């Protein structure tokens, strides 16, 4: 009996570590000096620095260069010789922590009922214990923008850092972005009409309806503006209050749309209200890259790994879209919205863009510094530059290529975060079962 208990205790001791992601702890705060030495540093702004050391103090990058002296004691040193050092990758648009299992309704917290919900805040529903989060860190993604959906104005998104006990710990930048999902401005015939015995063409004028709904949103903003002109309100309107920052340029309007006509309407919002507008989706944006540049509208491309829009298109067009925009001078952010892999392939989406004409460093910028800029957090993160948070990952090789993208170290604000997750634990568990090592 005693032996059994001991054995059990031993097993528990061995396996608690291995099976429950609950044992993957957020890292403790670390205020001391950290050195990442001798690596190939990809700054995030296009620069690559060979054999370079990064000095970190109190969670901030304080020095980047060669020949930085490293004290012998009392500091953490990570040897990055032969390795590649990158700014932490940023997932610019995701439902991370708002949904666990797509097919189980009870686990979905990203889509609210209603049309105009600017007052909705994603951050309050962000689940730091989602099993997905740690799998992203393991691939070098250290920050994510958590975005609500549903209706036309669906609320504000918040940027979270991916190593936290609760959403207040996770919050990196709250409510800085309001999300507008543009109604579709194209009528799509039903390809199953013949099978269903119905008419294939939509019965109503989809474009007109869409424009009317957009007008509804504009009217909301116009009335909100008038509301602010009033010093005191007899009746407080939470929805109007929620978009004040947008007018004060403390918030950006993220407009989710793909088609050219929709993007042209988005430019309207810049012209009429002077908002800082960002296009999210933008699969067709390459056709009007010059207009986007002229109006200083950045684009977050939802997914490089996608099929072309039309059967006549260049088969590789989605792979090339980022390069086309980049070459035209548009600020491009690459994203990964794949529902089956949940954002973990962000570096490879960028890798594809790199392969199809963008080049490696610009593609890296599209998932680091540009993402930070567009999200409005580039003063704190997005590149390995002095003064910024030490959000850094180290990879065995090229992070954009799955052949070599093996993350060995990740720091968030100077904290060395665990790269373990539910999946690595299951891996260990079953390696053990089969006696593999």
């Amino acid at each position, binding site marked *: 009996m005693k032996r059994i208990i001991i054995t059990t205790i031993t097993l528990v001791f061995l396996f608690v570590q291995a099976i429950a992601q609950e044992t993957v702890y957020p890292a403790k705060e670390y205020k001391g000096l950290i050195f990442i030495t001798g690596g190939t540093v990809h700054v995030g702004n296009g620069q690559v620095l060979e054999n370079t050391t990064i000095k970190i103090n109190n969670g901030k990058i304080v020095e980047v260069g060669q020949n930085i002296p490293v004290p012998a004691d009392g500091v953490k040193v990570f040897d990055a010789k032969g390795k590649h050092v990158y700014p932490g990758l940023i997932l610019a648009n995701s439902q991370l922590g708002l949904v*666990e*299992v*797509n*097919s*189980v309704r009870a686990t979905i917290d990203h889509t609210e009922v209603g049309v105009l919900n600017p007052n909705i805040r994603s951050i309050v529903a962000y689940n730091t214990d989602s*099993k997905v989060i740690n799998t992203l860190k393991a691939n070098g993604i250290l920050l994510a923008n958590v975005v609500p959906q549903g209706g036309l104005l669906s609320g504000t998104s918040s940027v979270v850092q991916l190593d936290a006990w609760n959403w207040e710990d996770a919050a990196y930048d709250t409510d800085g972005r309001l999300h507008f999902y543009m109604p579709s401005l*194209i*009528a*799509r*015939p039903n*390809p*199953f009409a013949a*099978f*269903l*015995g*119905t008419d*294939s*063409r939509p019965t109503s004028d989809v474009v007109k309806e869409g424009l009317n709904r957009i007008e509804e949103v504009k009217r909301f903003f116009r009335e909100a503006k008038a509301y602010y002109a009033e010093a005191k309100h007899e009746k407080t309107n939470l929805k109007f209050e929620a978009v004040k920052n947008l007018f004060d340029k403390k918030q950006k309007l993220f407009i989710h749309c*793909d*088609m*050219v*006509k929709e993007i042209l309407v988005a430019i309207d919002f810049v012209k009429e209200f002077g908002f800082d507008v960002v296009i999210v989706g933008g*699969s*067709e944006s390459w056709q009007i890259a010059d207009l986007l540049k002229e109006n200083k509208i950045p684009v977050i491309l*939802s997914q490089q*790994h*996608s*099929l*072309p*829009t*039309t*059967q*006549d298109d260049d*088969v*590789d067009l989605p792979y090339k879209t980022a390069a086309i925009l980049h070459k035209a001078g548009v600020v491009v952010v690459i994203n990964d*919205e*794949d*529902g*089956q*892999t*949940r954002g973990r*392939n962000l570096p*490879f989406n960028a*890798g*594809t863009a*790199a*392969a199809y004409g963008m080049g490696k460093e610009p593609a890296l910028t599209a998932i680091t510094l540009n993402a930070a800029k567009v999200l409005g957090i580039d003063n704190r993160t997005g590149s390995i530059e002095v003064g910024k948070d030490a959000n850094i990952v180290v990879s065995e090789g090229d992070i954009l*290529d*799955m*052949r*070599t*993208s*093996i993350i060995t170290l990740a720091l968030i604000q100077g904290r060395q975060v665990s790269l373990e997750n539910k*999946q690595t634990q*299951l*891996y260990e568990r*079953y*390696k053990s079962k*089969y006696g*593999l090592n």
Partner: protein
Amino acid sequence: MRRILLLCWCLLAAAIINAQETFPVNGVADTRTRTYAFTNATIVKDAATTLNGATLLIRDGKIIGVGTSVSVPADAVVIDCRGKFIYPSFIDIYADYGIPAVQRQPGGFNFNAPVQFTSNQKGPFGWNQAIRSDVNAASLFAVDDAKAKQWRDMGFGTALVHQRDGIARGTGMVVTFANNRENFVVLKDKASAHYSFSKGASTQAYPGSLMGSIALLRQTYLDANWYKTNPSAEGINLTLKNWNDNQNLPQIFEANDKWNVVRADRIGDEFGVQYILKAGGNEYQRINEMLATKGTFILPLNFPQAMDVEDPNDARYVSLADMKHWEMAPANAAMFEKAGIPFCLTTSDLRDPKQFWANLRKAIDYGLSETKAFEALTSIPATVLGIYDRVGSIETGKIANFVITNGNIFNEKTSILQNWIQGEKYGVKEDMWMEIKGSYTLVVNTPGAPKTFTVDVKNNSTASVIGKDTLTGRFTYDGKQVKLNFPESKGSRNQIRLSGISNGTTWSGLGDDAAGNRFTWTAVYNKEIETKADSVRPKRKPELGKITYPFNGYGWEEMPKQETILIKNATVWTNEKEGKLLNTDVLVKNGKIAAVGKNLSEPGARIIDGTNMHLTPGIIDEHSHIAAASINEGGQSVTSEVRIADNLNPDDINIYRQLSGGVTSSHILHGSANTIGGQTQLIKLRWGGNAEMLKFEGAPGFIKFALGENVKRSSAQQNNRFPDTRMGVDQVLMDAFTRARDYEAAWKKYEDEKKKNTKAVAPRRDLELDALVEIINKRRFITCHSYVQSEITDMIRVAEKFGFTLNTFTHILEGYKVADKMKQHGSYASTFSDWWIYKMEVVDAIPYNATIMQRAGLTVAINSDDAEMARRLNQEAAKSVKYGGMSEEEALKMVTLNPAIMLHIEDKVGSIRVGKDADLVLWSDNPLSIYAMAMKTIVDGIVYYDREKDVQLRLQIAKERARLFSKMTGEKRMGMPTVPFAPTMEIMHTCSEHNHKHGLFVVDADQYTESSNQ
């Protein structure tokens, strides 16, 4: 008063309608023999025979004489047809006439509703509501004179009608367009039997897919044959009885599409039936395949309308294929003629029957000969229906169905004057009978002195009056009545108004003037007038683009040929014990790998420089859903009778897209809607080939099984289909294989008994069980969609109970948990690299799965199940280098050699070895790198994808699109009707595992099928 009026109408009606022996007459008998002689006519007896100055004699609705020396009997009414043409009236073999439309359920079919398992038709009928062989057009048909007039006005006299509903649609009936009692209008009851792939108004779940429809047809042929043995187990089944009774009739299949034509013909060949094939209009795109059916076709004339493509933002979403089809569709019939394929023409599918003549003339403009058009509307349909002895030409003894025209019927200026059906005249444009054009002398008997004018009549509505001045009058003539208003003098407001009746060359009537005087008038034909011939614009021969295979921008104008290719100096990943060979040459000859080595040379070979490039075997996707018209037959839990092979779609653009990612073979699987799905089809990506050419020759048969959430319909709100749990899934499997084993035993018993007793009755052939027996006997292999360890283990145990090996577990994201059991059983594993947590059963999926299984000794493949990801399978394989540290060569094998092994084709493909098929990919970089692009993809020694050629193709597409845009907008500017633009949509089939976005115009087929899991 009203009653009297009504009575009058009834009497009138009775006079028109033929007297029928058994019907009592209310009043005095009015029996007439009705003998008519049409003299001096140009009679087109049939396509080959035209008689000038001939006489047509009819009596009692029949033709009793035709020729140039026919003597006119004394009792004949003589109609002088000088200058007129007489043709046999047309036959519409696919008319939508006289049969009520079937009521469909409002809102269409609801896939999420509880399943209806069997037919809801009351009575001793069969199990499936879509098999309506019991329907007879005769029991539904009713004369509808208003509709009949539409056909008569176009020149039709006869039609074949049937109820357009269901997969088997019962019998059709030949009727005329006469306005008479049905008893006389019907020429032939049960003239044809009709079929389609569409289940129509059936509310039953099965079949829910094209391949399900095909499987149901196949099984019904077998069941009907078995029913001839009067099996007591079936009782009375009128559906099968009627099916058998209908087999000796002409069998007409509504295919409506080029590939459906091929599919229908294949079923026909299987059961010794030559269908008459109702086409849809795109058949010209595959004219050789149409010819190969040896069938007679029924071609509609519904050409697509030009789209409004003036908005470039919209126009971008119209595919080149749609625009090309718009341009070429009117040439369909001409191409059939040129290919020597017999066909009928029909008014069917026209948006408006009035378009018939305009579209027929368009078809003629596009190269259809008038003779062939004429035959396609007369002798061919009559022959096909076995009624040429009665209609279809003007011949003594035939029914008096003919039209009288004032010229060549195909001439745009010609009018059909009268349409005689069964010896009854129906006026069409009788006002055109008389040539009214000419100069007339008009005498108006105004008080005092009569005034004389000259009236020059140009046509039925234009005339000028010449007195002192030339006056413009308002003139109308309707064949009988004449009306003429004109001013008394030039500029005068005072009008002279005349109205009267024409008796041919003399008109007379009454008139008045502005002063209120009333007077009589006469006009007499004087002489012809000279009119300037209308300036006829010479018709330009329509400009047509080229037909490509497939019919889209990336298709071939000419199919590529096998070449002798020598790839020089590449890094060759052999997947053989030699491993990776540097600076090596590979010679391809006759579609095979002929040599692998250094410094090879081959006179005449096409040299491809592989310096700094990598050559690998072609990628094989173990789990794909491209290139098929339907993927899921979810109507039942066991559908092993359905076959992907029955509905391959060679036009799928994803074939080309995947070639661009180095894929050379794809295993096209049934979906995961049910436990025992359908039979799969392995294809090679021979872009441009037809369905047969796509098939991978000599590969053993597979079948798709599925376990877990999808098959228990987790997403359906009200599932009533067994199984609803994994416990039930187990029993579905046990039951199916038990039935299969008993079935096999029953056949064995029968085979034994037959040796002793020749009268032994064979059991019913069951295609569902046949496939399962093949599995038990290891002649068909399973690839099983599965995720969690409990179901994997159970599937293995079921297989063991029935003595076979579960060949492949596909998806298998928890395979790592039971890798030892799978290994012991002998299964293969085909999985995703890093998918997880999109549904409950994959919350434990890990990206190390492939590595663990491989290290545990399993042969592992990485599959796509996704048309986009399939283009990057090399990268998906590379993820196992990242997750778990698999070697690069082993990783590449997961998308090349390993799937070949699990598909039992490793003797043909999967590695670079002399003698194997030359299915190769030349990569720009290490094939496991994200930076690698397929530069050339070769299948059977044919370069099907070439990155350089792709650039040229895109330039060509842009040019051709621009040409067609300007042609379409040109039509709009010329005032031709256009329809609003419609983006070309793409239907995507998946295993319903998807949250993967594909594109703005991609629709997931699962949105509309039962397995929807979103």
